[in-house]
């Protein structure tokens, strides 16, 4: 069988037809998922590190806001948070003449912004908890040594505690990244065409749910593999000092 004949034979299958016709839709969906997740993870870090440090404080006034934030966003489902932001904005900010509402409604009008905000706050809360735990398990000897050297509290935080905690947090954080990737499948319910949204459109065109969703599932799985691989690389690099010595 020549190559051409093989392709002709191959492309007669309904599933292959579906892939040939719809791969641009899947790719654009994958792209939406990737930037949405990457951007929320990045922005989430800026919430997580301060919130994690604040939540470790002994001062109630500093601890409480961080604690309440983490408690709310870990205590409610991501879908509920997304609905609250998306439909809440539609209810209170739309058609509202208040200057603040007028200023922020153009952002909340966009579904991607609502999803980005919900994802960022959600991952921020979960990552803050990782940061807090990681700071808590800091060997006290290292901090005592730093104090003995006369380092300021800020220097101890930035030079000793955070870098070391960051290393110890890596495995737990890789889990959070994967959870966020999978959690982002909810973006489809507010009209965003992410990878799951693309699969739903394909399903509605072909009435072939298994084929439509297995394709999206494979793409999610491949993305997860890449994430796992990257974290393995980073861990190998930053956990070098923890490896047994080669003799």
């Amino acid at each position, binding site marked *: 069988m020549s190559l051409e004949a093989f392709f002709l034979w191959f492309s007669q299958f309904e599933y292959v037809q579906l892939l040939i016709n719809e791969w641009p839709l899947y790719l654009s969906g994958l792209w939406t998922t990737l930037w949405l997740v990457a951007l929320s993870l990045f922005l989430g870090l800026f919430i997580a590190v301060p919130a994690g440090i604040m939540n470790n404080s002994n001062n109630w006034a500093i601890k409480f806001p961080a604690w309440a934030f983490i408690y709310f966003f870990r205590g409610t489902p991501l879908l509920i948070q997304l609905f609250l932001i998306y439909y809440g904005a539609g209810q209170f900010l*739309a058609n509202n003449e208040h200057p603040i509402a007028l200023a922020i409604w153009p952002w909340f009008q966009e*579904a991607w912004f609502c999803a980005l905000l919900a994802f960022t706050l959600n991952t921020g809360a979960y990552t803050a908890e990782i940061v807090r735990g990681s700071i808590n398990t800091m060997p006290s000897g290292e901090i005592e040594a730093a104090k003995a050297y006369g380092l300021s509290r800020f220097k101890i935080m930035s030079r000793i505690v955070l870098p070391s905690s960051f290393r110890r947090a890596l495995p737990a954080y890789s889990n959070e990244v994967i959870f966020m990737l999978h959690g982002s499948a909810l973006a489809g319910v507010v009209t965003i065409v992410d990878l799951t949204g693309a699969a*739903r459109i394909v399903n*509605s065109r072909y009435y072939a749910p298994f084929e439509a969703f297995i394709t999206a599932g494979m793409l999610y799985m491949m993305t997860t593999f890449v994430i796992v691989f990257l974290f393995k690389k980073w861990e190998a690099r930053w956990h070098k000092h923890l490896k047994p010595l080669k003799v």
Partner: protein
Amino acid sequence: MKKLIIAAAMILTVAGSAHAKEWKNVRIGIEGAYPPFSWTEPNGEVKGFDIDMANALCEEMKVKCTLVKQDWDGIIPALLARKFDAIIATMDITEERKKKVAFSEKYQHIPARFAAKKGTPIELTTEFMFDKRIGVQRATSMDTYVTDNFPKAQVKRYGTADEAYLDLKSGRIDYVMIDSAAISDGLLNKPGGDAFEFVGPKLNDPRWFGEGAGIAMRKNDTELKAKFDAAIKAIRANGKYKELQDKYFDFDVYGD
């Protein structure tokens, strides 16, 4: 070996005769989120034109019917997966769907229309619709129509019509395009609906909207199709259809 073949043949015969079954019990898939055709009351009860139609047809066919609620975008896959035997959910008889399922004769024909905030202009051209935000219900014939005809518009696809109305009210989308009777009932006649109106012409191009809405069934259930066709004809003739129609609409929903 011979015995085995005979046994297999017998099983096949039995299975074959069981297939041409007497329909005593028909499970009917409905949506329950598309007033006035079907909606769900706060207490969980489903009501609407489609529901009454299902009950009237079942009565006419002398079969016992069970109604099964199913989200719209999974309703054809669920039929094919044998979760129910027929769909009565204002489903347009389109060429695309005919590839997967069989349809009865039409039992209603209601045009689709755009709706928007009062005074919104509309032109059904690619250029005018450039970057316009149009809300549709996912997997409907309106979804296909808008996707095919206005490739440069931003098509927003919703799970239910109600979600699309919410976003039209908040201004996230410029137009919705849904069955005209559904828009009247779900948007225009509801509180706050007076700020909106139909815009543009009635749309019923058979290429996208088919020849009306029919009852969808699996392709091999030919006896069931014959039964439904006969029942539709019968209730049209004996006045039952008109009685149900007048309960919900002030115009002829059967079309011509």
